[in-house]
């Protein structure tokens, strides 16, 4: 199968399927979004204007039988950060795009105002169609139902939800999982707002054109596949912990470290943490039974199965999936210690196509300003379901994200870097993650380089720049290959397997250092894009209050020197 690139111009309606350019042969996922944006997008463009480019790029191993490798990168200039963005998601989109032979889908231009399209990818037959009339304005679950009725249940959908249609800063892109839930988001950086600004309601990738992804060295490929899966199965983390507890496995650790965002980052531990933690969530799902599942794969072929399905007291599904970041930003950060409430927030955010991190951080700022009472789940649901969905002035303030909410409401304690909300690890208690927030070209984003697993005193600023740098490079490798970050821990024990997979797929003889150098070059290209977009080194900082305001219980401030932050990408 020839690998190819799809170009769609929504201003003209022009659609072109091109052969994969020779100099893109070794690029995929994040390395391809970075290459396309740096080559083809004006860093100074209006992120919500027709000059921005929206790119979907499955990872290099996506579409194969390799577990947890079919994630999809979405790239664009972010309306939230004003810089380059790679936002990564699971679900079925990456798998089916890769199996249809596409390394990238590049969407430029913008439809006429008020006009919506569905981009239908049916092998080489690609077309733009108007969406079902009821879907613009509908929630993502109803829109997915309508689109599945039209295109068949085997397709994968990437959806612009109500938040994206309104071009909100909280807007992600919702990808359907194996059962068709629009629950796996390219969440960060307001990529959904870019999709909405282009008038693209959905991508529908048909599932009946599936072909094997090429691997020119079958023996090497087979060797790598077997070795990788053996290590994955035998690792207690990927083989047991993630299937049992999912991302929530880290909750109790972060709380004990004093890094769990609590009441708008005013404290680092939460009295109700255990009530919304990994053990409580798992035990409640098990006790309620019914449609509940403690382990679930968000994409075909994932053996880690970190996702879950949370049921109500009657055993009916409420939401999938309960994730640590949601429990942090929409639980402890808002004074909520009720799992049922967090499940409803999750469902609502999926339906709105909203990033729970940005939404939770904005709500925390609003609570600090007195707009909502701490811990009031009903008030939060009202804001999400009424105000954000309908775009009332309050909904717009929350929907714009934490940075804008803070500016409108006159709040100084606003947890953002480059205007993007900080994840559920307070950088004063987890200083390695603080370095990642500052120095990642993505803005505040733990998925760019999470240091929580390191055996280190996270309160000690020493060594955290090197730690963050290492994790950011490892993460970029995963994002290029299409792996879930939960496979990142296998990079050392299964290094040879990773190389067999890469070399077997691409007919190369790379070593791990080659992969690392490649990943570092991608990060540097992204930083260069940001500099050209006007994001200077002064934006590679946490807000000042993180250096001034002491965080209980460890009385910690962020104290990694600025000069060390500035030097992170300069060394070879």
């Amino acid at each position, binding site marked *: 199968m020839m690998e190819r690139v799809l170009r769609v111009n929504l201003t003209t309606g022009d659609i072109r399927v091109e052969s994969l350019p020779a100099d893109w042969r070794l690029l995929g996922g994040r390395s391809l979004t970075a290459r396309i944006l740096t080559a083809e997008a004006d860093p100074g463009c209006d992120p919500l204007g027709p000059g921005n480019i929206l790119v979907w790029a499955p990872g290099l191993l996506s579409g194969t039988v390799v577990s947890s490798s079919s994630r999809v990168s979405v790239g664009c200039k972010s309306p939230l950060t004003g810089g380059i963005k790679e936002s990564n998601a699971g679900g079925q989109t990456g798998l089916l795009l890769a199996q249809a032979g596409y390394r990238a889908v590049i969407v430029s231009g913008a439809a006429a105002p008020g006009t919506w399209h569905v981009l239908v990818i049916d092998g080489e037959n690609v077309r733009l169609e108007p969406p079902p009339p009821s879907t613009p304005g509908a929630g993502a679950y109803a829109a997915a139902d309508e689109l599945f009725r039209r295109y068949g249940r085997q397709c994968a959908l990437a959806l612009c939800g109500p938040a994206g249609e309104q071009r909100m800063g909280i807007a992600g892109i919702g990808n359907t999982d194996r059962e068709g839930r629009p629950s796996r988001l390219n969440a960060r950086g307001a990529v959904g707002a870019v999709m909405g600004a282009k008038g693209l309601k959905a991508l529908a990738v048909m599932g009946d054109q599936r072909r094997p992804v090429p691997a020119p060295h079958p023996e090497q490929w087979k060797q790598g596949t077997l070795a990788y899966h053996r290590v994955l199965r035998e690792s207690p983390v990927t083989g047991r912990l993630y299937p049992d507890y999912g991302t929530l496995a880290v909750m109790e650790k972060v709380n004990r470290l004093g890094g769990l965002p609590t009441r708008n980052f005013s404290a680092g531990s939460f009295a109700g943490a255990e009530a919304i933690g990994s053990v409580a969530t798992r035990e409640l799902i098990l006790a309620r039974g019914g449609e509940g599942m403690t382990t679930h794969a968000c994409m075909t072929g994932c053996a880690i199965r970190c996702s879950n399905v949370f049921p109500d007291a009657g055993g009916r599904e409420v939401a999938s999936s309960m994730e640590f970041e949601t429990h942090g930003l929409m639980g402890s950060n808002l004074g909520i210690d009720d799992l049922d409430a967090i499940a409803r927030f999750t469902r609502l955010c999926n339906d709105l196509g909203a990033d729970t991190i940005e939404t939770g951080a904005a709500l925390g700022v609003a609570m600090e300003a007195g707009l909502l009472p701490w811990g009031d789940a009903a008030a939060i649901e009202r804001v999400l379901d009424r105000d954000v969905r309908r775009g009332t002035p309050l909904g717009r303030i929350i929907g714009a994200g934490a940075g804008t909410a803070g500016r409108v409401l006159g709040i100084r304690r606003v947890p953002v870097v480059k205007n993007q909300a900080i994840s559920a690890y307070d950088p004063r208690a987890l200083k390695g993650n603080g370095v990642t927030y500052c120095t990642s070209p993505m803005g505040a984003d733990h998925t760019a380089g999470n240091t929580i697993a390191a055996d280190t005193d996270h309160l000690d600023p020493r060594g955290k720049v090197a730690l963050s740098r290492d994790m950011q490079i490892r993460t970029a490798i995963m994002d290029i290959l299409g792996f879930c970050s*939960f496979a990142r821990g296998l990079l050392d024990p299964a290094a040879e397997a990773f190389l067999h997979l890469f070399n077997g797929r691409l007919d190369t003889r790379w070593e791990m250092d080659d992969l690392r*150098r490649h990943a570092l070059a991608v990060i540097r290209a992204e930083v260069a894009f940001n500099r050209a977009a006007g994001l200077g080194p002064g934006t590679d900082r946490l807000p000042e209050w993180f250096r001034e305001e002491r965080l209980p219980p460890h009385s910690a401030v962020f104290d990694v020197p600025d000069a060390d932050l500035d030097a992170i990408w300069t060394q070879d």
Partner: protein
Amino acid sequence: MDAGLTRDTVVVQVEVFFRYRGQPLHRGAEMMAAGATLGALRERMGLTQPHVAVLVNGRYAPPDAVLADGDLVSFVHRTEGGSAAGSTV
């Protein structure tokens, strides 16, 4: 002072945030000889697996850290994988 508790011993509070001794979450106290290390406590509790992380009073502590009376020792998941080794790039 409780019977059996002398200057030669310390009592630490322990919490295990995963299934342990048949319970989904375990809390208890462990009496150790004065000067006992965190590594010795891990050995005694059978929690030496590399995927188990340990915090003492909410901070990372190395295996040779000496436990003090009243310490809170938390056994948690060592998840979000990846090594802490320095970059070789």
